[in-house]
């Protein structure tokens, strides 16, 4: 019994340490972004551009496909649920608000965590194991400035854009099924959706996407930097970064939604 309590205590302390490490990493990345050029050690713009293409552009197709599918799924469920009440036309409002405020950011965050977050963790972990991180340091290049800061900027730029795509494709997917089920033209469906959505709803979704972006990068980077034990360690770190990123996204979404609905 005592050993179990000790284990829980040790895990709690390790978790708090890791959160602190993540906060310091975030602070250091922001420091280099804002002050690096004044110290003649700027964050490399070409690295930011390359990461934006890898994280944003390369993920756009899967975001489009999955958000389209989720939108269609919501329409299927929504229409089926509202049929007994004869309120199927209200599905437009429900889907527009839920996709804009919630689902697009959440699905995009999960996809990007799995795709780009794991790639960041794997890349940094592999660099750690092959002493490339040490090589950066002895050249005089701060690894956070070189690896974490560009990924953070790229992710914060890419995630809201991907989320916007996700919102549009989610509504489009729902409109396809609604056309099939109710005969509502796509143009009418989309027009009604845009009437329902306010700037507040859009900002809610986009601001969540920025929070998710920061979580994904920080969690992936710290897992990459903490890799030990060769190829197996890299694999474990990659898996761990995806699991923790997705968990953090869902929990952050819940907290964010709870507070924002009380404003």
């Amino acid at each position, binding site marked *: 019994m005592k050993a179990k309590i000790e284990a829980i205590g040790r895990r709690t302390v390790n978790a708090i340490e890791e959160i602190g490490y993540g906060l310091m990493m975030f602070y250091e990345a922001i420091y280099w972004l804002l002050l690096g050029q004044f110290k003649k050690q700027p964050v490399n713009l070409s690295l930011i551009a390359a990461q934006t293409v890898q994280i944003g552009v390369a993920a756009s197709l899967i975001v489009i496909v999955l958000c389209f599918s989720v939108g269609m799924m919501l329409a299927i469920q929504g229409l089926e649920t509202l049929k007994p009440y004869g309120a199927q036309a209200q599905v437009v409002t429900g889907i527009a608000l839920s996709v804009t405020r919630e689902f697009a950011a959440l699905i995009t965050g999960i996809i990007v965590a799995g795709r780009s977050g794991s790639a960041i963790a794997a890349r940094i972990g592999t*660099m750690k194991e*092959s002493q490339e991180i*040490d*090589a950066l340091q*002895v*050249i*005089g290049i*701060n690894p956070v400035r070189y690896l974490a800061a560009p990924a953070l900027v790229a992710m914060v730029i890419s995630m809201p854009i991907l989320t916007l795509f996700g919102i549009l494709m989610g509504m489009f997917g729902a409109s396809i099924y609604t056309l099939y089920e109710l005969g509502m033209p796509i143009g009418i469906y989309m027009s009604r959706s845009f009437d329902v959505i306010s700037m507040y709803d859009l900002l809610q979704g986009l601001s969540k996407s920025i929070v998710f972006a920061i979580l994904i990068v920080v969690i992936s980077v710290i897992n990459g930097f903490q890799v030990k034990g060769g190829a197996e360690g890299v694999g474990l770190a990659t898996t761990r970064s995806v699991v923790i990123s997705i968990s953090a996204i869902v929990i952050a979404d819940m907290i964010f939604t709870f507070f924002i609905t009380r404003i």
Partner: protein
Amino acid sequence: MNKPLNQAPRKKAIQVKNLVTHYDGRKILNGVSLEVNQGEIMVIMGGSGSGKSTLLRYLLGLQKPTSGHIELLGKDITKMTEHDLHHMMRNIGVSFQGGALFGSMTVAENIQLPLKEHTSLDEKTMQIMSQMKLEVVNLAGFENLMPSQLSGGMVKRAALARAIILDPRLLFFDEPSAGLDPVVSAELDELILRLRDAMNMTIVVVTHELDSAFKIADRITILDRGEILMCGTVDEVRNSDNQRIYNLLHRQPRQDSVDVDEYLHRLTGQSLS
């Protein structure tokens, strides 16, 4: 009275004073003190687990020690700010055991990275400088290859070219001959000697390859279980009467005595008494 020039004390490029380090609660280096003169080749030797690679990590400023001081070119790196350390790195070149070339860059881009970090040279000048260093290490013509396309020896030479691109005053090698055949290893030894002679670099080589060590070293420091056993010239080390040094140089296996009771306890978890 002035000392004759050839007996004037040489300036110290590296000074380590009472270095103590820990890892995971275990003491790794126990009060290590060491000096390397400017322009000399110091070889640090020791068996596996002796602490030589750990010592190298602390000399490079990659970790902060538990206690002790490390001075490079007269400056204590254990007390430096990150900004000062960044400038100190301009004077240091390192060739890691596996090369540590950046896999996403070509050989030329790898070599030019320190130039991009520390200078404002234009692209053409950087290309010429990297080409010069590739010529020095006999890798001319391979600048556009990726590290994954290089053989082990070529990786080491490309890593060396990157290490010397800024003509550093201090050059460190971590197991330069690891994974190389004897011919390539001998070529690398010659290169190290040429670098010292041509550029008056101070060179520290961490290795357990005896042939290489005896060929290139001005002095040899022998580490064992986190402590310095001896520091001297090649002849002094060869003629040492220390049993552990003798075993290391003559590849004698350890003759540790075994306590039977303890051994059986470790196997079975039960005590006999």
